[in-house]
């Protein structure tokens, strides 16, 4: 067994590519929230998919058992990853495929471009793939003079509109049917000028547009949903048939896949092929799934390659608290149920991976200090809906909290490294103060004596809208109501004074001794 590491532990090597938030999430979110059309489109689409998912998930009596099996399989894959990769490689190679290893996005892009050039091709057809989106393959190929045609309908919409995907399953979820028609009319060569906004007509236009491309393509590039270690088999799950076209017709097939996509064997596929379709499009089964094992004589591509991609996955794996983010099967259920995603949309997250899973996966792949990725773990109310929806039970809220801690620690380390005497931060001081105040009732009572100051700060509108220092983050998106005139302790003390004031003192409450509440606060 090759599972034991005996060498020197190496520092994690993080990923690069389209994995970054370029401005703090609150700033990006504020801008996206200003687009009422976007919010209407997202609200409609996520409501539709949530209802569909719930209906097909509640049909299965063993849904929870499947989730638990899925979780355990993924956990065992991560624990056995080196040996499973070697096993997969041996089987895939024995069946006529060629494996390439890519440390990061740049290396993967160079490998793919070289393979395409070897075939003398200047264009390729593509099946929707998150891995190639992550490494920015299309942009790189364009620089190299190779045209990459996206063939998934939503990817096609995004590509024609020179836009960016905003959802991992439905990249054009932020566009409604009329916007799609306008994009087709503007960008699609030879399109019927009478095209309506009916989804069926739009799908037919995409079919006509891509038909020749499919039938004449020499090279296709795909991702993979699953890879089976014990046989070297790859699987692609799709709906439209564009996947089948790309995986069957061209002579050369190049697949790019993250190292974490492995499953141990055939028996495991039955679990994931029940979990994935119901969680992602809310269907009992997706229209098409293709499986191929290396090269099959006389059937499909005869020149078959697989690029195994690290790009920060090993770094995510090194984080014991965060590594289960690598269990993700890219179903998108977490974003469809997320109250934050539903309102801000995917562009606000900057990275290829938006929504709750993106908020943990992106900083895990790039490191918490990369660009503005440290703002992503805060893009959540920690409501837990994502955890409930996740088909492989990734505890996203726990990992969000863990990464918030990493963020705070990284800021502390940064100051230390400058070589100056380390000054305690506002956060440190605040935490220290809180720990003193909350350590005894007496201390807390002393602190509460300062309540009238809060009422003063609130002013006549009885709202605190701006706190100083780091506490400003709290009031950025909410007001604090003015504190009450007296604390519970003060009220209790008055209410339970010894009846020494004379007979009848307890019968008629003196002014100001009722329970504190909004109405008696003058």
């Amino acid at each position: 067994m090759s599972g034991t590491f005996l060498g020197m532990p190496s520092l994690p090597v993080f990923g690069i590519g389209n994995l970054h938030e370029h401005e703090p999430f609150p700033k990006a979110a504020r801008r996206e929230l200003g687009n009422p059309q976007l919010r209407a489109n997202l609200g409609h689409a996520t409501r539709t998919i949530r209802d569909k998912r719930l209906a097909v998930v509640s049909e299965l009596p063993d849904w929870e058992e499947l989730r638990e099996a899925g979780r355990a399989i993924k956990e065992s894959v991560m624990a056995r990853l080196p040996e499973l990769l070697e096993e997969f490689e041996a089987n895939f190679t024995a069946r006529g495929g060629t494996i390439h290893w890519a440390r990061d996005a740049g290396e993967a892009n160079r490998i793919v471009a070289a393979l395409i050039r070897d075939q003398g091709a200047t264009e390729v057809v593509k099946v929707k793939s998150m891995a190639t989106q992550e490494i920015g393959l299309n942009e790189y190929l364009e620089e190299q003079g190779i045209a990459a045609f996206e063939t998934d309908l939503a990817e096609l919409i995004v590509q024609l509109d020179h836009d960016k995907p905003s959802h991992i399953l439905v990249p054009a979820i932020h566009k409604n049917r009329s916007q799609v028609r306008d994009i087709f009319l503007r960008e699609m060569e030879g399109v019927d000028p009478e095209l309506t906004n009916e989804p069926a007509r739009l799908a037919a236009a995409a079919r006509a547009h891509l038909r020749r491309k499919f039938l004449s393509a020499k090279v296709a590039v795909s991702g993979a949903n699953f890879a089976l270690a014990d046989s070297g088999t790859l699987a692609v799950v799709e709906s439209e048939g564009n996947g089948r076209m790309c995986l069957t017709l061209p002579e050369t097939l190049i697949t790019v896949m993250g190292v974490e996509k492995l499953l141990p064997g055939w028996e495991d596929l039955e679990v994931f092929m029940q979990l994935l379709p119901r969680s992602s499009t809310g269907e009992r089964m997706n229209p098409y799934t293709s499986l191929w094992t290396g090269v099959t004589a006389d059937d499909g591509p005869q020149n078959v390659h697989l690029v195994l991609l690290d790009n920060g996955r090993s770094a995510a794996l090194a984080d014991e608290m965060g590594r289960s983010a690598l269990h993700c099967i890219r179903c998108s259920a977490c974003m469809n149920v997320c109250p934050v995603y539903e309102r801000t949309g995917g562009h606000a997250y900057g990275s290829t991976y938006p929504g709750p899973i993106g908020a943990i996966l992106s900083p895990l792949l790039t490191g918490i200090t990369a660009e503005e990725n440290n703002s992503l773990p805060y893009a959540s109310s920690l409501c837990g809906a994502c955890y409930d929806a996740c088909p492989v039970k990734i505890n996203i809220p726990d990992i969000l909290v863990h990464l918030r801690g990493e963020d705070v620690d990284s800021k502390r380390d940064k100051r230390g490294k400058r070589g100056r005497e380390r000054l305690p931060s506002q956060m440190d001081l605040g935490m220290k103060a809180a720990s003193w105040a909350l350590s005894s009732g007496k201390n807390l009572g002393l602190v509460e004596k300062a309540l009238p100051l809060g009422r003063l700060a609130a002013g006549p509108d009885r709202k605190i809208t701006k706190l100083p220092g780091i506490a400003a983050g709290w009031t950025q998106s909410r007001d604090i109501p003015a504190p009450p005139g007296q604390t519970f302790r003060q009220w209790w003390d008055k209410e339970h004074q010894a009846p020494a004031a004379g007979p009848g003192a307890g019968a008629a409450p003196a002014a100001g001794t009722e329970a504190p509440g909004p109405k008696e606060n003058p």
Partner: protein
Amino acid sequence: MNARADILDRIRSALRDAPAVPEVPRDYRRASELGEEELIELLTDRLLDYKANVFVEEAAAVPQRLAVLLEGTGRYAVPHGLDQALFAEADAHDAGSGRRVTDGPGHRLSVDELDGIDAVVTGSAVAVAETGTIILDAGPDQGRRVISLVPDRHICIVSAGDITAILPEALRRLDGTRPQTWISGPSATSDIELERVEGVHGPRTLDVVIVRG
């Protein structure tokens, strides 16, 4: 160091805490007890939900059904391993088998030829009633993957004996290393406002003939 060694090294280093390999609980459903009629009923219901057309026939009635389905169709492709007797009725209507094109080791249809063909008739390896899924594994009665992909209409024959209730039962009957296509209805997309519409790049019409055993 080469990339392979580098990556494997990084992963081993990431796992230096030696996480435990958990036991996988397999207490989800792995077998079922539906009878043939129930299986046919369930599969039919699911396929209709996907907007496929479904015809349930006794074995003797299949040639007649195929003749009716192929009426008004131009040329159609069949894999060499599919029983040619199934087309006796269709041939009788045609006065000859001029419309039928066979794909086999002796004659491989090119992609362009297939693009000029209206329909394809194939068998299938196994079906899953609960999910409305038909699995093709490129057996002799199903042919190369390309022939059931390029023509716009797929007429697929499913033997009642090949229908299982749930996915784990179906996968146990298959060899994972054969090229497979799992088909659940005609091609479809949910990419516009997450509403499903049928008919994109794959066959836009799926006719399923279920043959009672």
